């Protein structure tokens, strides 16, 4: 098998697969859930919540994807319903990717718990691709039940991973790939569910069924998706390997003094996050294009909002207005104890000519920034704070006002 991989002259690709990824991450966090029936819901409102994934134990009790969460109480009361914690999942994914970069610099984060690793050029470190795969497996917590598929393309590696046992490497050589894929279910095809549904209605259930058709028939029915699934069924995967850049995440977090679901309190946290991000040296002269605003709830759940900005924005007031608006749209189902803001995309901004009157303010601000830098180097952190209103009307005195670290504004007109 290994010889086939080498002889094919194609680059070996590994796929680490963690089925039921979010559920396994929840078990990693709460080991007492191991072996219990678990089902993950979506983030819809309490009454509209649906099941998006479940483990085998929950399936044995009749739980299926798409069911209403409220049905579960009557059908399978022993099933534990999990509310998604996307912030935790994102942090864990970053951590796992960070470890995999120890083996290969070319890693592509896939979907549904799949991660692809280009193993080309690792001969000096690992005699065989399978040795690199064993090393990759050793970097993932066994609680997550990882398995690896090894082949000559991403799709073939994904199929191999689905056939692998937990903690094992399964290889699918490049020779006669079409025949090896023939028995594979169309469920593994990287296309939308509605296309798979239509394929089933045509009585096409396996890749072998697809490979037996003409490409023009599939092209006529499904357009370019049809052409692509025909090629995949024949073992031809032309999808490029797109490595995920190993970048240091640009994240700021702020913990609230008391968990709160009140809009003004959360807004003061958001203001603090924006000010801190804009003050980071990595973002000097650069504007924000895409952000992730996350709220961690007191009960360990979290919600997040992706924010695509129209162009690169660095103006603090504009950012504040946009985020304040988006904050209002988030359905918050409990007190929040931490907020985070992550920059997902940024780019240079074109300099605008400053008004002459702004020069003095600019100098003052630079002096202030310098003062903060000196104080920080002397005391380890800046002893300068802003006083901000949090819940001025609160009957609990310590909740009325707060202190946030003073970050010199980056606004030219401030």
């Amino acid at each position: 098998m290994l010889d086939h991989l080498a002889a094919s002259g194609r680059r070996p690709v590994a796929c680490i697969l963690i089925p039921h990824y979010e559920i396994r991450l929840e078990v990693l966090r709460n080991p007492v859930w191991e072996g219990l029936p678990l089902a993950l819901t979506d983030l819809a409102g309490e009454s509209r919540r649906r099941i998006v994934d479940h483990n085998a134990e929950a399936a044995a009790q009749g739980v299926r994807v798409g069911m209403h969460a409220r049905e579960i109480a009557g059908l399978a009361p022993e099933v534990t319903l999990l509310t998604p914690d996307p912030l935790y999942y994102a942090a864990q994914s970053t951590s796992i990717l960070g470890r995999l970069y120890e083996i290969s610099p070319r890693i592509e984060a896939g979907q549904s718990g799949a991660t692809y690793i280009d193993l080309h050029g690792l001969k000096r470190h690992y005699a065989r691709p399978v040795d690199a795969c064993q090393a990759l497996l050793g970097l993932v917590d066994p609680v997550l039940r990882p398995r690896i598929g090894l082949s000559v393309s991403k799709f073939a590696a994904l199929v191999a991973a689905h056939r692998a046992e937990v903690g094992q490497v399964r290889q699918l050589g490049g020779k006669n790939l079409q025949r090896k894929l023939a028995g594979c279910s169309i469920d593994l095809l990287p296309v939308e569910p509605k296309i798979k549904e239509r394929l089933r209605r045509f009585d096409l259930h396996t890749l072998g069924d697809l490979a037996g058709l003409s490409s023009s028939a599939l092209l006529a029915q499904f357009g370019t998706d049809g052409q692509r699934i025909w090629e995949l069924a024949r073992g031809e995967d032309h999808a490029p390997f797109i490595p995920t850049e190993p970048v240091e995440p640009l994240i700021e977090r702020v913990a609230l003094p008391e968990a709160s679901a009140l809009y003004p309190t959360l807004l003061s946290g958001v203001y603090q996050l924006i000010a801190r991000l804009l003050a980071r040296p990595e973002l000097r002269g650069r504007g924000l294009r895409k952000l992730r605003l996350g709220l961690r709830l007191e009960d360990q759940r979290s919600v997040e909002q992706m924010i695509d900005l129209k162009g690169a924005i660095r103006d603090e007031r504009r950012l504040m207005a946009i985020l304040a608006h988006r904050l209002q749209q988030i359905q918050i189902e409990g007190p929040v104890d931490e907020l985070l803001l992550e920059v997902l995309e940024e780019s240079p901004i074109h300099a605008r000519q400053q008004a002459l009157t702004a020069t003095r303010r600019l100098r003052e601000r630079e002096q202030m920034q310098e003062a903060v830098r000196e104080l920080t180097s002397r005391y380890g952190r800046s002893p300068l704070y802003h006083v901000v209103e949090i819940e001025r009307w609160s009957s609990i005195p310590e909740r009325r006002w707060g202190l946030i670290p003073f970050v010199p504004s980056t606004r030219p007109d401030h």
Partner: protein
Amino acid sequence: MGPDSIRSLNAPRPLAVQATDRGAPRAVRLRGHHLTVKRILDVWRIDNDWWRPQPISRRYFLVELNNGLLQTLYQDLASGAWFMQHY
């Protein structure tokens, strides 16, 4: 609380208090001085967050101490501990 936190202003500070059998402050230890409560000017109670794991239940006293100082203190009714805090 780390540097990434919003810090509370006017956080309660623990205080050593001698109380009467009925739970009213009789004397306090303030900056190393033993001060008796001359009179209690006001009493009020706060109950909040009763829906959360750690509800807040406090009885506040505005007292005049024997050195003439006005001071607001409260007893945490869950733990019995005393604190001083401007209200």
